[in-house]
């Protein structure tokens, strides 16, 4: 069930009404049932998967908390169980490719193993939540004893398919809190959902057509064109995933629950490190806490820190999918983070340059440079395979100008999408600053009720009148 579908527009109000009309003790069971129905709407059989993982992790954590002797063994079993499930569903074909490639000289061909595996929706997200849970219990947190509350933690439908990746210490206590819905919270939830739908259906889905046109016909475009496509994709993925996160937060808010923020204007970051503090924040913090720090973090010397960063980001890249271009993207991000870290350490030696970077112009230059670096990364992320990565980068770096030395794109003017993209990209680039100003102003000043209502009405109007037809799924559903 897509958040941007009619089914969800019916499902959410029905669950909302049942939730608030029933006595408080039934609320968790209602949400759990609704979450399972939500999951079954896609492929009913995979409900078994989430149920088995829930039962397994529940008992595993209880054993970790109880057992002194076999604590570590239970932890390892839990992690292997979770990662094994993820590996089977997500990386089977990738491993098959890799093993076949390695064993090719000896006649190995593992492609003969004919298994059809359909990736269960949301598996990468809820498996990471389970791993976080058992590791934290191992580290000393108290396990959740109420099975229904625990079962709701990974399956909670607003965050079930594409996060944000929650922490059980934040989420589970909210389930037992006595809470009455206020008008302010209801409005906040509804406005978050509207904003999310606007980002997804109006901006991201329309940009998608522009981006798909470019990335599926790389050979037809010039380097300048590819830069435009890469910038458009950077915004598409941000608005698509950011829109999803807004709808998730808004939906949760309607039931009185807070889920973490996932994005904070990532394209105004002044460095790659700052970008990762603003982009997919819950994945970033998960990777930091459960991968980077256990690898030694920044306490093991300069080279090891860089190594840890690269390993963390490569694995973070592979988390997105079992594809070489995701691996390359992770490697690129890791190297950028390592360079950024080194640069930060060294910039004190260059007083003049450091002063410039701290000035207003310097800060803006840093933002532009970071955006440039991010866009190159996004092009790697979007390219369909490693061959396409090379082709895209060659175009973007103007090494390959075999076709279209001048921009073909000026001649590309498909109704609705293409001409809109010409206007949309500059608006989106500048729009972030306007949005930040508006957000800060709204935080500091109470807005008149009718002004907020007019804003809401405008959002509804634009979604109803201009949303792209046949809205595609959210990009992060595939991860």
């Amino acid at each position: 069930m897509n958040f941007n579908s009619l089914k969800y527009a019916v499902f959410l109000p029905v669950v909302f009404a049942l939730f608030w009309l029933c006595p408080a003790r039934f609320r968790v069971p209602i949400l759990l049932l609704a979450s399972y129905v939500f999951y079954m709407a896609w492929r009913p059989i995979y409900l078994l998967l989430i149920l088995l993982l829930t039962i397994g992790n529940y008992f595993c954590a209880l054993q970790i908390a109880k057992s002194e002797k076999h604590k570590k063994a239970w932890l390892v079993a839990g992690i292997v169980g979770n990662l094994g499930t993820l590996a089977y569903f997500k990386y089977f074909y990738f491993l098959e490719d890799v093993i076949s490639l390695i064993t090719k000289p000896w006649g190995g061909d593992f492609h003969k193993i004919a298994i059809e595996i359909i990736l269960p929706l949301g598996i990468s997200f809820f498996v990471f939540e389970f791993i976080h849970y058992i590791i934290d219990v191992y580290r000393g947190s108290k396990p959740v004893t109420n099975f229904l509350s625990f079962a709701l933690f990974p399956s909670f439908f607003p965050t079930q398919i594409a996060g944000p990746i929650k922490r059980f210490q934040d989420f589970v206590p909210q389930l037992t809190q006595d809470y009455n819905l206020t008008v302010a919270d209801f409005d906040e939830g509804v406005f978050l959902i509207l904003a999310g739908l606007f980002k997804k259906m109006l901006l991201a889905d329309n940009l998608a057509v522009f981006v798909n046109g470019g990335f599926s016909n790389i050979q037809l475009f010039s380097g300048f064109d590819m830069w435009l496509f890469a910038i458009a994709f950077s915004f598409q993925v941000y608005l698509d995933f950011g829109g999803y996160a807004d709808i998730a937060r808004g939906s949760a808010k309607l039931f009185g629950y807070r889920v973490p923020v996932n994005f904070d204007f990532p394209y105004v970051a002044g460095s790659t490190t700052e970008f990762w503090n603003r982009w997919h924040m819950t994945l970033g913090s998960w990777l930091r806490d459960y991968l980077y720090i256990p690898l030694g973090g920044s306490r093991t010397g300069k080279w090891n820190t860089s190594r840890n960063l690269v390993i963390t980001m490569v694995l973070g890249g592979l988390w997105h999918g079992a594809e070489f271009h995701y691996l390359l993207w992770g490697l690129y991000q890791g190297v950028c983070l390592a360079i950024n870290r080194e640069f930060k350490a060294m910039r004190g030696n260059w007083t003049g340059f450091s002063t410039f970077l701290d000035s207003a112009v310097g800060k803006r230059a840093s933002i532009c440079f970071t955006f440039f670096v991010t866009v190159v990364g996004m092009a790697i992320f979007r390219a369909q395979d490693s061959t396409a990565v090379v082709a895209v980068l060659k175009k973007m770096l103007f090494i390959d100008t075999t076709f279209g030395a001048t921009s073909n794109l000026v001649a590309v003017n498909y109704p609705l999408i293409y001409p809109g993209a010409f206007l949309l990209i500059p608006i989106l680039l500048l729009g972030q600053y306007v949005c930040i100003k508006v957000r800060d102003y709204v935080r500091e000043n109470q807005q008149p009720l009718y002004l907020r209502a007019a804003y809401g009405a405008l959002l509804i109007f634009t979604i109803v009148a201009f949303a792209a037809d046949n809205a595609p799924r959210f990009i992060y559903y595939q991860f």
Partner: protein
Amino acid sequence: MSTTKTPIQVLFSSASFLALLMFAVCDIGSRFVFKTTNTKISYGEPYRSRIWWAARDYLGQKEVPDVVLLGASDMTCAVYRAEATLYNRPEHELSNHHSEYMQRQFAALNCPYKSAFCMAIPGQMPSDAYFIAKTLLSKNTKPKAIYLSVTPRSLYDATFGDPSSTDIYKLMSKLGGVEEYELATRNSLWDKVDYLLSRASNIYGHKWDFVSMQHNVVHDINKVAFNQNFGVIHTPITIRKASLMELPEDFTPEEVTDFPYDPKTAVFENNIPEYRARYKQFKESTLIQQVAFLKDLCELCKNEGVLLVVGNSPVTNENRAMIPKPVYDHYLSEASRVVRENGGMFENLDTPTFEHDDFFDSIHLNGKGGQKYLKQIATVLSQTSTVASAGSSRAN
């Protein structure tokens, strides 16, 4: 001092509720504006599909043509390839819908019909033909005769969704006149709900008009900013096909072209796999539904006083052989029965006069075969027009 708000006060203190209320007011306002202005044609259509071009051409004519040709790609190929062969030049399907070749046949046969207009669209089903006839070919814009070309695919296409999913239906629904079919043609519950929403909300129901207006604004801005006419598409069709698979079809007038027949360069394309998929599953429900539309079309034409001739289009033996004989016979008997019982005429033109080299592929005729087919249609129409006019004079 604490005061308790009444439910109405609570409701009116919610920005979400007020937003919804404001939207409802706008929606009612827009309903009024749309009713008082001629919005149907003036805002145009954001996506220029084949039917959009045909409807635009048909409505823009000074005189209503005598004969309108309906059908799927079997008919368009015949008409435009015959035309291309006649003039020995490429023929653009979207910019000219008249069949000069057929008009010449009418003249040669001394037929009372003079002009022929092709409203056939690839993939057209009897349901589409009915929607076109009900919306465009009735009242002041009705022709004297309609020829509908059918093939087994017309009643059995396994790849066909539901009648409301076609571009033809969408445009005809916008032009009005097919209201009573709006709910019945939607097979899934969610499509029905979506339709009811489009009826409840004027803004949602006129989504295409708003998108059209947005296009115009964006085009105007781009014109000023880039000093280029963005209303003309230069984007190669390969790119559009790759990127716009999920969007409705949109063509510039010269993008669908047919070429003249040349025995030296003529090739036969194998489209058997495609048709194997189409014939894969014979859905009785599709047959029942499409036969019902065929019946409605016959009744409509009878009520409007328009002569309807339904013809079984020629196909190759290989194509026919893919369909089990009982199924093919059932198609032929059902189609002819329903047409004849409801006041139309049925002609089986799938005869051995068509040879293998008349075909471009297993089902589509080339220019030579197209001319042969049009000649036969003209003959049939010429004969039936005499019968019809005799009938009408007797009735008078």
